């Protein structure tokens, strides 16, 4: 599996959010670093097929992004994860499973499995509105994994998670990334530790760093801090 992002840009009126970005992703975990407003969310939205680029194209194994075929490969957790407050976690996951076109039998077992993985089995029948921020985020992570996605795009997935949950999340992502493409954005460098094979850093809609985590571990922290101060 290979995603090709080719000279992709996004303009909002006079503002350039993403400026002719090109890169390719293969199986493994890639971290997307950048300060607020760097263009990370816009880029991820375009890659998730919910925002049309102003220019360029995105394809996964030659499948264009705005197709059902592409979406069938995709798992996505948006930055401001939406939910129905009066749905229970279980019902919500079943609903997302139907949106993903998963057969009911498979959906039931997958929902139970993921509720267990994200530690929400005990509260599966409680309404989401009664959940803490971290619990809601775990529902979001579970829904993204329902269809065993070959492409997993996570926008600030660790927001609201406590340190223990972050560690568990990193393990989970590391496991998924062995055979699938995982791209997740964060503004916390330590989130990428031991997980991300590759790191992309964005500023003003363009990449200022694209390299292996192992190549730049020490420098990356310093570079990112420098970028944040700009």
């Amino acid at each position, binding site marked *: 599996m290979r995603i090709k992002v080719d000279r992709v840009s996004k303009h909002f009126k006079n503002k350039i959010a993403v400026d002719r970005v090109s890169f390719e992703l293969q199986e493994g975990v890639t971290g997307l670093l950048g300060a607020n407003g760097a263009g990370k969310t816009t880029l991820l*939205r375009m890659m*998730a*097929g*919910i*925002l*049309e680029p102003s220019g360029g194209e995105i394809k996964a194994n030659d499948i264009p992004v705005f197709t*059902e075929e592409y*979406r*069938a490969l*995709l798992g*996505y957790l*948006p930055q*401001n*994860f*939406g*939910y*129905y*407050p*009066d749905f229970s976690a279980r019902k919500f996951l079943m*609903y*997302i499973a*139907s*949106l*993903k*076109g998963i057969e*009911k039998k498979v959906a039931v077992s997958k929902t139970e499995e993921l509720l267990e993985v994200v530690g929400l089995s005990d509260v599966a029948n409680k309404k989401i509105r009664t959940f803490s921020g971290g619990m809601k985020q775990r529902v979001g992570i579970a*829904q993204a994994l329902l*269809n065993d996605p070959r492409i997993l795009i996570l926008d600030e997935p660790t927001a609201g998670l406590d340190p223990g949950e972050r560690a568990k999340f990193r393990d989970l992502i590391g496991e998924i990334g062995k055979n699938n493409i995982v791209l997740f954005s964060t503004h916390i460098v330590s989130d990428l530790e031991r997980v991300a094979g590759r790191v992309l850093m964005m500023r003003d809609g363009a990449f200022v760093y694209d390299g292996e985590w192992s190549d730049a571990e020490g420098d990356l922290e310093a570079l990112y801090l420098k970028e944040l101060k700009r």
Partner: protein
Amino acid sequence: MMKSIRELYRFEIYKILHSKLTVSFVLILVALSVIMGLQLSKGARDLIIYDEVRTLNGLVINDETVDRMNADLVNIDGLEKEENYKYTGLAHTVNMINEGDGLISAEQFYQNRLKFQHLNMEELRLSDGEKQWWTEQEAEIQKPFVYVPQLNVKTFAEYMTNICLMAILLTAICLSGVFAGEYRNNMDQLMFSCRNGRRQTFVAKIAAGMTFSIVWILLFTILLALSLWLRTGLDGLSGVIQLEVPYSAYNLSFLQFIGIQIVIVVTATVLFAAMAMALSAIFKNGVAVMGTMVGIYLISQFVNIPLKFRLISQVKAMFPTELITVWSLADFRLIKIAGNYHSMYSVAPAIYIIIAIVLVLAGHLAFKQSQR
């Protein structure tokens, strides 16, 4: 694909039914239907001599009947008695077109019918072709009329206007959030990133909204009919509509007219539901949908278009809330399609469905192009 849509449809129905706004509003409308029905039947019950009125069932409206009625009428002394006069319904029919002549004979009644019919055609600016069409219809109406106590069904037919209003409010309030709610809850991002989040979800939402509206509107109609029927029965269904609109040239019984009203109300509900959901997808804001729909209703009710503007005034007459009224039986304006004339009742449901399809397509376009 059908399986996916069916599963999504189930969730969409669940979402609509579990909205607090829907639950409270539907409960109000259920109560209103029952109250209206009981009020309706109370009208009939209040006639102390209702059973006596029923003895007139099947009377042919001829000279003998009208003379007997007139003879009884002159014996009435006092308003209270008049209210309980067993010929009230019949006198209402006959004297509606008496031109202030006092008591008229059966012969005058039938003559006046044709006279009023003609005047009405002139006022409505009918073409010769339309007049000819109505003359043919009139020839098919069997005369003399047979009297059937029609108080209940007549009022029921009048109350169908309220059911039509309920359809507007029900769809505007309960379906305004079908698409807008997804944007409000930030669910659109997740939805659009899922395989079935565009086309299949749209179809499921539209189907769920339509089913919800049609089922409830039929239920309100049944509740209204049941509340009436359980108390006083549904006398008069076989009566001709001329008992209520004497100079109408429609060859219809009350039962047939109520059937037409039900077709109008159901197709109008499809139209209103399509409008509410299309606007919900376009505006992405539930309040804007409610405001627009209530605004359109108010304009249709309070803007009076003179008959001299034939096209616009006829378009307005085809609004569901107008066409469903009993008095639309006196609106003789026809629609010419491929050289043939058709009554507004036969064309309007098809027009409602066509407009509904156009609205759904517009909504689909908006939903399809939605981005985050």
